[in-house]
């Protein structure tokens, strides 16, 4: 094998931080190369240099044996380096075909040839084993399907290197399988893939070679056959997996905090990605962590949002602390003592342009006021400092822009926002999506601690290991219906998977 890409001694500094020092990365032709490291280790910076988004301060890039300088994303694409970002770059109102060939539409002069556009798109998608109609608008697709479209686009550009940044973080187990199969197909075609992920099991399953970064430096590089999971974790964090968080006891009581009866929502014609709920009933108790497992699009998030008052529901009764309640808006839910940590931090939780302090205190501001609603800045700062210490939030100061924190620390800020409200029930949707191993353990420990204080926690997650290690009790959901209930002791990945993915799985108890 020969190297298609070599990045040598790359250096890059940002204000106040050396993001990369002397980083080297070598990718062979037809290789799936795992690029690993905690958040802030420099993976994204390195890949943005490769994509022409950032310019390196020094260093050399060899592509196909020749020294190159990549000045713009467009240039990177022309060379055959395509990046699929965590946040997709598709135009929602255009069709799959238009998105795949955007900027390179087949046609005569200014006129578009719809027939050729459709046929060429279908040819690319057939090569990937995707059966979607090329004329479907992208807005009608699930997250996993949109990702397939991104991959189809990359493929249609005759890419030689495809960079996938956290490609599986929004996918369910089943969809991850599909994606990994596609990666192996691409590899067989001689395409190289740089695979950035926090999911180490996937790395072991699909990668040929790994490179680990830590604090902007190379921490190790090896063929996958030469390393174990423990080795990799050690390279990433400088400590072994046995130190990661494990729950030791349950704090569940018999006292029901929230009870939901026959929750139903209608399908939304404007948002086909939204799953209708067909009668969801469950309860959660003080100090209990209730895990909700399901594939993407099973209705987990929809149920959480309906209970929190973020979306309307057609039918259903909610009882909170024994009293029937009507929750019509998030404000109603918050007044009862319910908090929601949404799945998409940047879109739904953070004010990226505002400071850490302002992000943390936004919900609890009502408790920090002088006369006529002046903010008591001293009290606010004290509160933020208290949570910084309690949650070990790493930031340069309270006035740092929240967008500059790592994913794990951003998540802690969101959690702190709700802790400041002293909630009785916390709904957490994908609490550790896109955050690194060490921060993940911290978040898990935090959730455990909250449960020990008597807070009821509903935890939605796509990651079965997370569900299994954290939950006292587990519900599985599929196509808007609950398909199973398991006590922690009786749940296994296989049993959950069956209830989540197979039709006709009946509720057990």
């Amino acid at each position: 094998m020969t190297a298609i890409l070599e990045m040598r001694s790359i250096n890059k500094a940002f204000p106040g931080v050396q993001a990369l020092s002397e980083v080297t990365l070598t990718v062979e032709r037809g290789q799936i190369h795992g690029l690993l490291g905690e958040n802030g280790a420099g993976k994204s910076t390195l890949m943005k240099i490769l994509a022409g988004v950032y310019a390196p301060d020094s260093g050399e890039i060899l592509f196909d044996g020749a020294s190159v300088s990549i000045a713009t994303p467009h240039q990177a694409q022309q060379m055959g380096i395509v990046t699929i970002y965590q946040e997709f770059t598709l135009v929602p109102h255009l069709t799959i075909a238009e998105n795949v060939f955007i900027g390179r539409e087949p046609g005569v002069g200014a006129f578009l040839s719809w027939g050729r556009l459709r046929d060429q798109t279908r040819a690319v998608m057939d090569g990937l084993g995707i059966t979607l109609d090329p004329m479907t608008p992208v807005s009608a697709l699930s997250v996993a399907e949109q990702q397939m479209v991104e991959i189809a686009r990359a493929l249609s550009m005759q890419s030689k290197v495809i960079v996938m940044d956290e490609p599986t973080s929004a996918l369910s187990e089943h969809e991850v399988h599909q994606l990994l199969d596609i990666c192996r197909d691409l590899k067989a075609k001689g395409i190289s893939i740089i695979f950035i992920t926090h999911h180490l099991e996937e790395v072991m399953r699909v990668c040929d070679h790994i490179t680990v970064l830590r604090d902007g430096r190379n921490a190790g590089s090896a063929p996958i056959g030469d390393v174990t999971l423990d080795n990799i974790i050690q390279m990433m964090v400088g400590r072994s997996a046995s130190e990661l968080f494990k729950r030791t006891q349950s704090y569940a009581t018999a006292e029901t905090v929230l009870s939901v009866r026959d929750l139903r929502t209608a399908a939304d014609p404007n948002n086909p990605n939204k799953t209708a709920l067909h009668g969801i009933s469950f309860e959660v108790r003080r100090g209990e962590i209730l895990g909700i497992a399901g594939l993407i699009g099973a209705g987990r998030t929809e149920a959480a949002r309906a209970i929190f008052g973020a979306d309307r529901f057609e039918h259903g009764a909610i009882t909170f602390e024994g009293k029937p309640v009507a929750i019509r808006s998030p404000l109603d839910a918050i007044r009862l003592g319910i908090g929601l940590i949404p799945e998409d931090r940047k879109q739904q939780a953070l004010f990226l342009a505002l400071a850490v302090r302002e992000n943390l205190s936004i919900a609890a501001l009502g408790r920090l006021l002088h006369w006529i609603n002046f903010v008591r800045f001293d009290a606010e700062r004290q509160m933020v400092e208290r949570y910084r210490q309690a949650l070990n939030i790493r930031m340069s100061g309270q006035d740092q822009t929240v967008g500059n924190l790592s994913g794990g620390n951003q998540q802690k800020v969101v959690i702190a926002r709700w802790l400041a409200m002293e909630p009785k029930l916390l709904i957490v949707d994908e609490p550790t999506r896109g955050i690194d191993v060490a921060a993940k353990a911290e978040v898990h420990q935090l959730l455990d601690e909250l449960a020990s204080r008597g807070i009821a926690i509903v935890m939605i997650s796509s990651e079965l290991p997370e569900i299994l290690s954290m939950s006292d009790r587990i519900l599985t959901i599929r196509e808007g219906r609950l398909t199973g209930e398991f006590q922690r002791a009786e749940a296994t990945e296989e049993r959950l998977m069956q209830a989540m993915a197979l039709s006709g799985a009946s509720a057990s108890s």
Partner: protein
Amino acid sequence: MNSRRIDVIRLLGQFAPFLFLIALVLIFTSLNPRFLLPLNLWNILRQVSITGLIAIGMTFVILTAGIDLSVGSLLALAGLVCADIYKGGEFFTRLFGADVSGLAGNVAIAAALAMIIGVLGGLIQGIAVTRLGVPAFVVTLGGLSVFRGAALQYSNGGPISTFDATYNFWGQGKVLGDVPVPVIIFLAFAVVAHIILRYTRYGRHVYAVGGNIEAARLSGLNTRRLILSVYVIVGFFAGLGGFVLSSRLNSSEAVAGNGYELTVIASVVIGGTSLFGGRGSVLGTVVGSVLIGVLNNGLVLMNVSSYVQQIVIGCIIVLAVWFDQFIKARQKR
């Protein structure tokens, strides 16, 4: 080295409007020393005081990623009704039949009326934006036409002129020697607005809604009421502006404030407030307003025609936004 260079760029970005203002002042002073005379400087401030006043309200709107194109028309309507009632309500009586001559000669009532009309105009538009879900651009484009039409209908197209000294004090008077009253009003409201945006819960919520409306809603903010409120605020300032302008010109006309929306939005944007919401300040808006005044005044002193002034202002708006985005792009790269 590298990081220091970026820090300089960031600082430059933050203070760009202010630095640009200083540069303009230096240029105009060197070209014509009369520019720096106190009388001229007060004159500049007086000239921008009314659009500046409305720009304070517009800052709230733009911080929530909204826009209000109707301010000039609403100003005209409020100014007309206010002037008419002050003079005995001739047009009011003709239109509605009621005799309001008892309110004549009372500045407090006339001014309050102007502000009430502004608030009502803003309220209606705010309701249309938040309850009907029509984009603010469209709602206020409609408002621009509706309020202007209402003003023309109210006065039958003619002006209402000649008030007494009590009324005209608010637009033409001077206090503390040379300080024009409209300037005092402008700066006083700027201070109040600055305090509200920086130090109160409401201000924090305005930034939050503009920064990420979904996150704001999920954090328990009443996003509809917040958005409604900013249109009421800008309406209030448009109404107040109508009163001050009629007093300053000693006349109120249905065509008053024509094209003010451009100057007002320009003041806010040149002052560094992002049209996408969530970033900006009243302080910037004050600087932006003064900058436009300095530019106009300086060009007059240099005998540049008022037509060319419009061309220059238009270019500067585009340049200001370009510069803002250029700075942001440089910070990232």
